[in-house]
């Protein structure tokens, strides 16, 4: 697997980077690599035979090809099953540009999603015990004993350093481990699942980490929505499943949130007294301070404590309205900034009005958050803080990726000039 890096600062939607785009038909030994500049002009080509090759074209751009040159940016997303990881992934990959799809021609039960820039892998693929094994030993999938952290660490480390890996596939339908699939190093690798921040070695590989923290009340409401129509399920079975898994969840999954750079907390609303329907939500975006390449979003004045009700004379909102708050807090001993939204958007002007009052959103144009939200208005949470903050986190990760790429590109260019 050769990875070619062109030392110019590139945006996420750039047209070169052949190694990532050609997920199919990349298996020939000899390949023609054609580099296109942003205006589509061909400016250099080489016929590659091995993993190391340097090409200099007429314009004296330096192109080096080697497995170790491109470093994949690795993002961790932790959450329990049924807490919106898939929706978040769809929003995230959409912000990066291009829809993420399962690998073509592969195992139809593969858990992997691939887009031009991003590969999302599901950490269930690192189960060391299959369904029968867990049943025999009496352990849940939440239990570290059911997972192979050594292999997880080795493979994430390999991908990060530009090496293709043969990753196992855990089949969620059969409960068996299927034969592995090839994962090539993408620009951005997202590892999502129950334990991305559990093992300290894996944690150290993450450039950014997110934890989706769904309160018990909301988790119950969401699972009722998801499962009630399913044959065999009842309120009792849904409740029993949550309760039986809770000790392992509390022991192994929940503690990971202390390591996350961003936490999205989902709680019942405070706008409606004693509401337990779980329809209106209060969502908090907890952003760690001092994380390199990550500047927290703020409302009106960075570092101040703000409470804001956008609805009033200037903006009319539907019941029960929208309430925002922002301010510095401490979270597991870390300094954080917290942005909170209670209520939901029912109209477009509410959404764009709120967006225009937030700063540090890392948007590329005015209204980009609103545009993304509208594009996926059919996704769950598109009218409340879950969708809003997921979109914002997506933009922050895009920005983080671009800053990391720029900082890596700087050094070699300077060397080349000298």
């Amino acid at each position: 697997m050769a990875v070619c890096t062109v030392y110019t600062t590139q945006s996420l939607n750039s047209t070169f980077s052949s190694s990532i785009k050609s997920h199919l038909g990349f298996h020939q030994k000899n390949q023609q690599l054609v580099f296109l500049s942003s205006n589509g002009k061909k400016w250099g080509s080489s016929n590659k035979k091995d993993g190391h090759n340097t090409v200099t074209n007429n314009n004296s751009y330096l192109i080096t090809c080697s497995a170790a040159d491109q470093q994949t940016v690795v993002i961790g997303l932790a959450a329990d099953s049924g807490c919106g990881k898939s929706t978040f992934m769809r929003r995230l990959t959409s912000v990066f540009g291009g829809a993420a799809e399962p690998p073509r021609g592969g195992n139809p039960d593969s858990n992997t999603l691939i887009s031009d820039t991003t590969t999302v892998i599901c950490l269930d693929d690192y189960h060391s015990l299959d369904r029968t094994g867990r049943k025999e030993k009496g352990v849940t999938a939440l239990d570290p004993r059911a997972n192979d952290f050594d292999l997880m660490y080795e493979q994430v480390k390999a991908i990060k350093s530009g090496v293709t890996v043969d990753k196992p596939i855990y089949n969620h339908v059969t409960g068996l481990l299927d034969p592995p699939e090839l994962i090539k190093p993408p620009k951005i690798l997202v590892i999502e699942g129950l334990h991305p921040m559990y093992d300290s070695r894996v944690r150290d590989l993450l450039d950014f980490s997110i934890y989706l923290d769904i309160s018990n009340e909301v988790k119950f409401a969401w699972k009722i929505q998801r499962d009630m129509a399913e044959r065999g399920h009842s309120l009792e079975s849904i409740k029993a499943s949550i309760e039986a898994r809770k000790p392992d969840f509390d022991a192994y999954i929940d503690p990971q949130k202390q390591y996350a750079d961003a936490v999205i907390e989902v709680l019942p609303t405070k706008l409606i007294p004693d509401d337990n329907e779980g329809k209106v939500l209060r969502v908090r975006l907890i952003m760690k301070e001092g994380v390199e390449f990550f500047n927290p979003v703020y409302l009106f004045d960075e570092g101040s404590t703000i409470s804001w009700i956008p609805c009033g004379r200037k903006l009319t909102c539907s019941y029960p309205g929208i309430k925002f708050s922002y301010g510095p807090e401490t979270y597991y001993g870390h300094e954080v900034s917290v942005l909170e939204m209670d209520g939901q958007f029912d109209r477009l002007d509410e959404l764009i009005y709120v967006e225009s009052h937030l700063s540090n959103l890392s948007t590329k144009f005015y209204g980009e958050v609103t545009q993304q939200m509208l594009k996926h208005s059919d996704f769950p949470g598109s009218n409340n803080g879950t969708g809003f903050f997921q979109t914002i986190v997506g933009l922050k990760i895009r920005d983080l990726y671009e800053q990391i790429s720029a900082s890596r590109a700087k050094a070699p260019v300077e060397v080349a000039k000298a």
Partner: protein
Amino acid sequence: MATISGVNLSSPRIMAKAAKTPKVQLLNVGWLRCSWKQSAQLGAIRLRVPPVHAAPDKISDKVEESIKNAEEACAGDPVSGECAAAWDEVEELSAAASHARDRKKESDPLESYCKDNPETEECRTYDN
């Protein structure tokens, strides 16, 4: 499984322990998504693909069965590992069933066409 067989790359790879994995991969359920993709290449006949309900139904059966098993496993000792593992299986299958429903929605050729072309005649919806 074209991406796995016959690959000859010169760079090192970290291999998963393939010996442990049972060879049943192609016997898995046929997803609608899969059959739709193959037929989509033929273009003209894509709208005639019959809806394949087999996969989600099969998962639904498994969900139902797993709930029964969990209730039995917990009857004796509700705090045992077996009980937790059995309910965990219910959660896993319920999530898989939900994902299968989402995929089925996405893979409806008319739905995806109409998402991009809502004004066309075949995509119009009428109230009353």
